[in-house]
């Protein structure tokens, strides 16, 4: 029974396939039915089904409201088409700042400023502190410098004493004697300076002893 039905269906399918071919080539259903008188009833039923399906399809139309709503939603979409894409790439190549670049650069600068500003403030404060500290110590240092300068000139004078070479000439010998005496005078002067330096030192030590009070600690 099932086999009979299957065979029957296969036959109908084959006929239907041909009949649909005729319809597609422009023949009317009536013309096709004449070609298959044995299967006319079945074909008639199938054609009416087709007709109904077609009508169903034709009568189903989306509402205007839905149509407009969809196109509105689509228009809100920001797509990157080829043209927009190439424009974007061209901008990048020509070095014109794009919106994305401006935002990124601003963010980079802001993040750098977050570090630079506190570091700068600390540096300025440190500089101010160092300068104020130097000013308080300035008089002592200047005194020390003067003494050091005196010492420096003495040692320079010593290094400049050069004895002339013996030539056997009387005039040269007299000149040498004069030079030696002047050297002795400069050496004397140096000794005087040394004595003054020692006096200054002892004075500084005595000042320190006066200002230092062990009980204050």
């Amino acid at each position, binding site marked *: 029974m099932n086999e009979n039905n299957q065979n029957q269906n296969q036959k109908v399918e084959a006929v239907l*396939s041909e009949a649909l071919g005729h319809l597609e080539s422009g023949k009317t259903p009536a013309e096709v039915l004449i070609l298959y008188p044995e299967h006319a009833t079945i074909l008639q039923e199938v054609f009416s089904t087709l007709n109904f399906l077609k009508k169903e399809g034709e*009568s189903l139309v989306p509402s205007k409201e839905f149509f407009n709503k*969809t196109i509105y939603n689509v228009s809100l979409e920001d797509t990157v088409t080829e043209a927009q894409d190439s424009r974007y790439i061209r901008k990048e190549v020509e070095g014109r700042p794009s919106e994305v670049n401006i935002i990124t650069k601003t963010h980079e600068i802001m993040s750098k400023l977050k570090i630079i500003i506190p570091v700068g403030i600390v540096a300025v404060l440190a500089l101010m502190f160092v300068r104020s500290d130097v000013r308080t110590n300035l008089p002592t240092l200047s005194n020390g410098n003067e003494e050091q300068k005196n010492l420096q000139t003495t040692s320079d004078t010593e290094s400049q004493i050069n004895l002339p070479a013996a030539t056997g000439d009387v005039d040269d010998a007299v000149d040498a004697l004069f030079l030696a005496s002047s050297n002795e005078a400069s050496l004397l002067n140096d000794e005087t300076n040394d004595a003054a330096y020692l006096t200054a030192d002892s004075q500084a030590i005595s000042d320190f002893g006066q200002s230092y009070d062990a009980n204050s600690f």
Partner: protein
Amino acid sequence: MAEDRDANPKELMKLAKSGDNQAFGKLYELYFTPVFKYVYFRVKDSADAEDITQTVFLKVFRSISNFKDQNVAPLSYFFTIARNTIIDGWRTKKEFTVANGEANVFEQIPDTDPSPLQTAEKNETGKIMQAAIQKLTDDQKEVIILKFINGLSNKEISPIVGKSEEAIRQIQCRALVSLRNILKSHNDI
């Protein structure tokens, strides 16, 4: 088919691809109703059909720059995206279709002032037809909708469903015989 030859969809696709929104608008007008019909008959629910149709056009708008016009007709492109969107929807939301195939009323825009009796008869026949379509296999359902509701040719259906024209012809004949049997048994009852 339904394809408006004067509008030259391929040319419109090229223009839309290069950023011409007016061209996209024309394509939208051209394919909105066929896509909606296809989706509606596949999912059997007007709300779902509206959501999916909207998604289809958003997807097309987003991906239009990837459209390669050498082999694919714009019509196939739209329908393929619609088909894939429905399949994706089924994967994520399995209850698109109602299990018994009869729970949803076959909603349609009414003809001009039909009488209450005509409307009732039409709705009743529509429900029966819809129920009969739902009893077909997925392949048969798809081919019947594309061929007889959307009016596409076998050549146009072929790239959408990924089958040869001959295979499509066989599927549609088998589907029509099944539909006829289902409707006949219903009338006999």
